[in-house]
């Protein structure tokens, strides 16, 4: 097996001499991380605190409920509710003292109970931001629920219910408020901040190019004739793809590790967790990415074909794995597309960033192991060149 290491060492040396690995494995992804960070990170920042002025009739129960609902949105956006006269709202908005004004008409609760449709107006500044959108959506949702409850009560009364009972239902509804509450969801990969997601996504995306430098060298060496020469050597033929796989693995681990480290150092607020746990994650994810390259090496005949196939695979897996933007993983197709090294890296880093250890990574490591086995089996079984696989 010492001769496998000789081949790996020679391969790595040639990659260093060629210098392409530095360009496509490090420089380009770092540059793209920086660009994406500038473009996307501000859009994905947490919502700013907002002050909402509520103007409405005193002692009106549903107005009070509406105000309480807005005040209780702290999980999603930090809202401070103040009372104000309707006439003052435009001035407060213009002065920037409030981020939104909610104008509730007189007789609001009574009108609702009577089956009318009183108009509640939401006043926003010229550039309301996401915070204004959230306030508007919440007011809209609360009003819809009030309306639905009022209509249900009216229907019950028409069907023979006692007015006192219906009023009691309305009063109870007013007291408890809407049953649906806003909260900021966090799945595993969403534990990463926007910048962390960019770093993880780009590292995963470019990993699919970096690992090609080793395994896809099989296709290049077919063209050079060196593959024939290697196979004429007194070594088991399977040592050749093994050495290429190891080269890819080493290049992938080093390049991705450097990218994650550089991302952590270069960008603010990027904390990916324990380096040791990340290293374990990297070893597994890079192995999965490498196994995909064997399938490409098997089915392509020229280096040009291999390069095109690698790009298509990288973009497909990168996009479905959330390298550029988060994607839905609903449905069977979504689940299948999520089974890729980019997703695994993002999820794994989400776990490590949240303080998870190797045990917490078990599902991700199992998934990458499955990918390795499946892709290697596919590379052996799929029709194609049979010189090394």
């Amino acid at each position, binding site marked *: 097996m010492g*001769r496998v290491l*000789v*081949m790996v060492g*020679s391969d790595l*040396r*040639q990659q260093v*001499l*060629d210098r392409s690995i530095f360009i496509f494995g490090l420089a380009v992804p770092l540059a793209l991380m920086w660009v994406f960070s500038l473009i996307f990170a501000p859009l994905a920042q947490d919502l700013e605190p907002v002050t909402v002025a509520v103007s409405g009739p005193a002692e009106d129960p549903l107005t009070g409920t509406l105000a309480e609902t807005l005040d209780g949105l702290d999980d999603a956006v930090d809202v401070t509710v103040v009372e104000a006269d309707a006439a003052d709202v435009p001035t407060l908005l213009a002065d920037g003292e409030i981020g939104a004004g909610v104008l509730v008409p007189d007789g609001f609760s009574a009108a609702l109970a009577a089956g009318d449709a009183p108009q509640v107006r939401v006043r926003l500044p010229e550039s309301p931001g996401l915070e204004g959108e959230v306030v508007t959506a919440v007011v809209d949702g609360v009003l819809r629920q009030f309306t639905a409850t009022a209509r249900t009560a009216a229907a019950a009364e028409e069907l023979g219910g006692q007015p006192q009972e219906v009023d009691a239902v309305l009063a109870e509804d007013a007291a408890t408020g809407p049953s649906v509450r806003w909260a900021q969801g966090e799945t595993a990969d969403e534990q990463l901040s926007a910048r962390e997601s960019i770093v993880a996504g780009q590292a995963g995306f470019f990993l699919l190019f970096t690992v090609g430098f080793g395994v896809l060298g099989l296709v290049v060496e077919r*063209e*050079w*004739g*060196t593959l*024939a*020469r*290697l*196979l*004429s*050597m*007194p*070594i*088991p033929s399977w040592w050749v793809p093994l050495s290429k796989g190891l080269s890819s693995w080493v290049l992938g681990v080093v390049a991705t590790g450097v990218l994650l480290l550089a991302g952590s150092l270069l960008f603010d607020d990027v904390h990916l967790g324990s380096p040791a746990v990340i290293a374990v994650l990297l070893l597994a994810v890079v192995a999965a990415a490498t196994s995909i390259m064997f399938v490409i090496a098997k089915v392509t005949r020229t280096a040009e074909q291999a390069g095109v196939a690698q790009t298509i695979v990288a973009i497909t897996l990168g996009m479905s794995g959330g390298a550029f933007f988060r994607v839905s993983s609903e449905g069977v197709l979504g689940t299948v597309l999520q089974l890729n090294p980019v997703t695994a890296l993002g999820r794994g880093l989400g776990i490590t960033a949240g303080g998870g250890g190797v045990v917490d990574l078990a599902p991700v490591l199992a998934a990458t192991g499955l990918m390795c086995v499946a892709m290697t089996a596919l590379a052996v079984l799929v029709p194609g060149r049979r*010189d090394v696989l």
Partner: protein
Amino acid sequence: MTTPVLQVDALRRSFGPATVVDGVSLRIDPGETVGLLGPNGAGKTTTISMIAGLLRPDGGSVHIQGVDMASDPLAAKRHLGLVPQDLAIYPELSARSNLSFFGRLQGMRGAALRRRVAEVLEVVGLTDRATGASKTFSGGMKRRLNIAIGLLHEPRLLILDEPTVGVDPQSRNAILESVEALSGEGMAVLYTTHYMEEAERLCDRIGIIDAGRVIAEGTRDSLVELTGRTDTVTLAGDGPLEEIEAAVSRIPAVREVHRITGEGRLVMVVQGAPQAISAIVATASGAGMTLRDVEISRPDLESVFLHLTGKALRD
């Protein structure tokens, strides 16, 4: 009886419906250079790929130094040096690094490897360019490095697959001289080419291959005999032509002599003109001929191929 370095029996290989190699048999003894001469697509490279263990034959067997390639490929490959038709070198590495890398894969190590690398660099004339990246080499230098890698571990059998393709005349000559020297050192050489002059110059025996079959095999002269044509030697000069004719007629290799008195020429049909020419010239001079011109005309392997297949070698 000596164990042949290479023994190939009834080798067959098909790709889909096309039979590319159809029952090729070969034997090469130590120190022998055997050529496989045939046009492009004749099956030379496929035959070599099976001999080198790169391709599994559909039938037949390959033994190198008595070791069966099918049952013990690693042992068989230890005796084998392959020089592929492609420039099988790593362009980013220097000549020395290329050699060291392949030497290590052959199991060579340390001082022995360094010494042997220096030796083969000297043999192929690349000592002065040992450290520069091979991608900066000329085509001829790359070809020489390609051969050096095949020689490095001093194999019993060296397979050269069209080693002079795309090489300038100077480098070609250097390569041919190297191959000549190797057979002199006892190495068995299998040399494929579609250049008949290379086959004539290098090979002790030549197998003519066409459409996957060896259609004739033997020494150059025995192959030429198949055409029914012989060598011709023409002497032009002054002197007593009748006496000179009588004198040269007594040389065993000279089969027929035709005298053209008006032109002062003798035209002879000769068996093995290159070997007999010195005797012919000496005899004619001794008989009083003052030579103005000597011309040898030989039927070549091109005419053999044409005779056997009805088509030209480079069709």
